[in-house]
């Protein structure tokens, strides 16, 4: 069993806006592309051109249909849900690790796997309630989101690029990176303003990453008044009379 460090003051993580994620998979593939030659072993693709291609990915986007009501009143929507390691404060994947390979960094809270010590037993993946860890099919070690620990401090990159690959590439700007331990950081303010939520809080994992829920639909009484009402309010009787008035207004 591996111990978690004292909670860090800096809690680096992601804030993901489910209101504008279109499910384009840009973050998924850019993550793979960066990380396959980044931290640890490459992200292998087994049977890459075959009948059952299976690769290791650190980030996946799932789609769920949510619907309520029936008939024309039925409101259904597709929610695209990007999922990667949430860098939990009470990370069960760390405490369950028999070798100490799984660890949470004391300085910024990033959860990583020390692949040298990983025996690929899979206990951490089993203990993660979010399914955020994947065993590399070729190397047999556990892979997970590193929050691009090899980008965010990397002075070989221009300063503006020192953020996770998924955040930098996201076309809709649905992904944000920052210090959720600082209540005044941009990401914390965003979470406060939009009612950001923890994923599955009942698991007591206290995830650092937050999700911004889809904005509520417009309530029926917020819809614009009907055209008939608009017309009656502003339009002289009769179409052509109205046209004449409009032309006169032009001068």
């Amino acid at each position: 069993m591996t111990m978690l460090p004292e909670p860090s003051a800096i809690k680096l993580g992601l804030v993901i806006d489910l209101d504008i994620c279109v499910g384009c998979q840009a973050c998924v593939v850019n993550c793979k592309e960066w990380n396959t030659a980044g931290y640890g072993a490459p992200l292998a693709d087994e049977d890459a051109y075959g009948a059952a291609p299976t690769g290791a990915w650190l980030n996946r986007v799932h789609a769920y249909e949510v619907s309520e009501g029936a008939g024309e009143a039925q409101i259904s929507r597709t929610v695209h849900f990007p999922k990667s390691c949430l860098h939990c404060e009470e990370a069960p994947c760390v405490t369950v690790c028999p070798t100490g390979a799984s660890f949470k960094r004391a300085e910024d809270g990033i959860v990583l796997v020390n692949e040298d010590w990983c025996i690929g037993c899979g206990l951490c993946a089993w203990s993660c309630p979010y399914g955020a860890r994947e065993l590399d099919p070729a190397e047999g070690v556990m892979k997970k989101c590193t929050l691009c620990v090899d980008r965010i401090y990397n002075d070989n990159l221009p300063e503006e690029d020192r953020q996770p690959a998924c955040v930098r590439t996201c076309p809709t700007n649905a992904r944000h990176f920052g210090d959720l331990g600082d209540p005044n950081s941009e990401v914390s303010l965003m979470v406060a303003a939009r009612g950001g939520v923890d994923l599955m809080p009942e698991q007591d994992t206290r995830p650092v990453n937050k999700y911004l829920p889809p904005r509520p639909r417009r309530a029926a009484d917020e819809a614009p008044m009907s055209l008939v009402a608009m017309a009656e309010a502003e339009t002289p009787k009769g179409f052509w009379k109205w046209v004449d008035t409009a032309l006169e207004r032009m001068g």
Partner: protein
Amino acid sequence: MSVEPNVDTAPAVSDEVRQTTCYMCACRCGINVHMRDGKIRYIEGNRDHPVNKGVLCAKGSAGIMQHYSPARLQSPMKRVGPRGSGQFEPISWEEALQTAVDWLAPIRKDDPKKLAFFTGRAQSQALPGWWAQQFGTPNFAAHGGFCSVNMAAGGIYTLGGAFWEFGSPDWDLTELFVLFGVAEDHDSNPIKMGLGKLKTRGGRVISVNPVQTGYAAISDDWYGVTPGTDGLLILSLVRELMQAGKIDIDYLVRYTNAPWLVIRNPGAANDGLFLRDDDGTPQVIDRATGKPAPHSDASVKPALQGEVKVKGGGVAVPAFMLMADSYLIDDYAPETVASKVGISAARIRQLAADLAEAAFASEVVIDQPWTDWKGEKHDKMIGRPVSMHAMRGISAHSNGFQTCRALHMLQLLLGSVEAPGGFRFKPPYPKPPHAHPKPAGRPDQVAPETPLGGAPLGYVLGPEDLIIDADGSPQRIDKAYSWDAPMSAHGMMHMVISNAVAGDPYPVDVLFMYMANMAWNSSMNTRGVMEMLTETDPETGEYKIPKLIYSDAYSSEMVAYADLVLPDTTYLERHDAISLLDRPICEADAVADAIRWPVVEPDRDVRGFQSVLLDLGARLGLPGMVNDDGSAKFKDYGDYIVNHQRKPGIGPLAGFRGEGGGAEGRGEPNPGQLDAYIENGSFWHAEIPAEARYFKQANAAYQDFAVEMGFYDAPQPYAFQIYSEVLQKFRLAAEGHGDIQPPDHHRERIARCFTPLPSWYAPFEGDSVNEEAFPLHALTQRPMAMYHSWGSQNAWLRQIHGHNPMFVSEALAKEHDLSEGDWIWVTSHHGRIRVPVSVMAGVNDRTIWTWNAIGKRKGAWQLDPDAPEAKKGFLLNHLIHELLPPKDDGMRWANSDPVTGQAAWFDLRVKIEKAGADEPAESAPQFDPLPRMNGKGAAPKVVRYGIEWTKQGKGDAS
């Protein structure tokens, strides 16, 4: 406590960053290609680039797998087995080029029409179009006729520009964005960026789409319209808005032809034409005098109603009166259309109210003085914050052209085109149809060993511009610009093979194609096309299409049908010009173009197609491609990009021209131009002056800027054409007027479908099959992560979309007792396919749909024959025929829009039934597996990309 290992948080990233342009789809984003040890380490978006501003989509991010794909062709090849068998022998480039010359030179000497040259999904048509012109064949086009020509032609003929990637919502100022149909293709990253921006600002997105997927997933409201009825819905909105006075009269008078006088003289040759003065200027009624006056006179105050007598008979009334007559009728009442469009009257009214409120509750005002083309000065730029976008969703129907026109009319009624907050054009648009070239290819423009008398594609302005002979017969192999499809501005690639095999209008000797997967997902009636490609003349034993040259970078299904294969490079190994001469990367506020350059040298015996084309042109001695001594004028495509001039001072690239590279738009060729582009991130961009940024079609400063940049040689201000005189000219011909008239069997259809004001008619396929026998609509859409067919071979993307289920609504699933993973048979009037099912809520109840172009033929693309793309993936194309079912008279009409020839693949009607429990869980039909065609062994079993830079790879070459 755990022991924290040392983590290297600052590893070296790359040796060098090379900036070029992505080609994973039609978006053309700027990319930074990180190179390490001569290999590609990482591809990211270029932050400075006008298109993507740093972001990059899934396709772009998977570029590495595309570049190193095992499906890449290795060398030129000649066919050694029967056509379609996929048996080839590698040959040298010298042999390949000589073979092509031996086939092409006699054609050019004898009858250049015998070459049909079609370039599929190539992004740049300026060079291949010019090549065809210099060869002398009119038979050139790309795949627009199959894709979304209705949207292009509907836009050009109405607005002088189209959606596609040629314009965009004013993302910073719009408050309501309405998206019709599937549109996840062109302009894909800019639209995603815009959606995020708009919704983050609190703006609303409304989706009108039978399927709630793609961008519709984040819409604030969704209208699950019945396919093919968008036009009816739009005309109902038009009726409601007009009736309520929620239209922008000021805008209509200033910027559209709503006040122009239209002659009403039933039965006469001038009925429905504009009343013009002796100079040919259209007239309006001046409210001050009640008399006709030129619309262009700044002192005239145009009326919207009234009537003047026309010399010689009849009267003339403002087009706006005809609009009122056409749309303020019960046919378009929400109650009347509700059941057809599948949306209740109350919901249609809600949509109309949303549009009205967004457009008229508040104006968008930019504090920027400007002057219009009539000389009137305006203190401010005032607009309406409603924007729209649509692509193939509304256009791939037989009524698509009129539907696209109707949508543009709706935008104009709301005053939201080229106005702040609305839809804005990107240069070189707006550009009206009369400022475009007309197509060439009439008998007097085609001659042996002579260039064609103009560019093969263009915009016709009336029957006199058709590409037909004196008898009215089609002159192009695809019958574009004939009475079959008079305004087919993108050609009709989908008809080429069937026409050539039928010898109608004539047979061809050589079919030359590039990036066109006609033997698979780029054809309707796929099995039929595969058979046609191998069909022989019983007398001679020769193939009906005697010679087929094909260029592709990958071992696609089409390669198997080629006689001669010219292997192309990947997009990272080539030069390209993303040019103002065809499809640039401009933004609404800036002129821009871009290049690609070989950031990696090919490791195979392949050449960029455009360089090969220039080489072939030189060997054939085509004018413009050879020097006076007969030697090749251009070393390669890169040389051409720099030194070719379309007219003096105008070349493929507008940036860094002239001596020293300081000229923009017009200027002498600059030998350092490509280096200057590379230095600048492979693009060039120039801001449009602030006073020229809106109302471009009517803005004096923009018109001057456009001339300066070389978009045209003199200012071309114009009014948006709600009423289309061009359409009316064709209708008059159909009614028996003029020297050039359609054959009798075309007359009724042209009179009915070519209405000068936007109209709606039922899609032809639904009209010609028994709707009870085929009660459902079937559609395809493309997933954002893989909208180009060549993504299926991509080791990363295929894990995201490895097969494509048929999605059915919950109601249909209940009706047919279907659950996830079941198999069904889907049957149309033409074919039958067996496919797996998935159940979803967000789909119109009478519509089934699937992802397009995921299904692959076994063995193609270097995939395992048991790949899910082949075993579970499928094409809807097998159900769609290029012709409609026979009519009572035995005639079979094209399954296309009668105006533009756009393939009407979204008109498809089907029925479904559950597959038997004993049937195999495999999609049907299946075809014989193709052999490996690229001269390489099996694809690798495991990919561990980048291993050489990890601990695992150091000292381990595996």
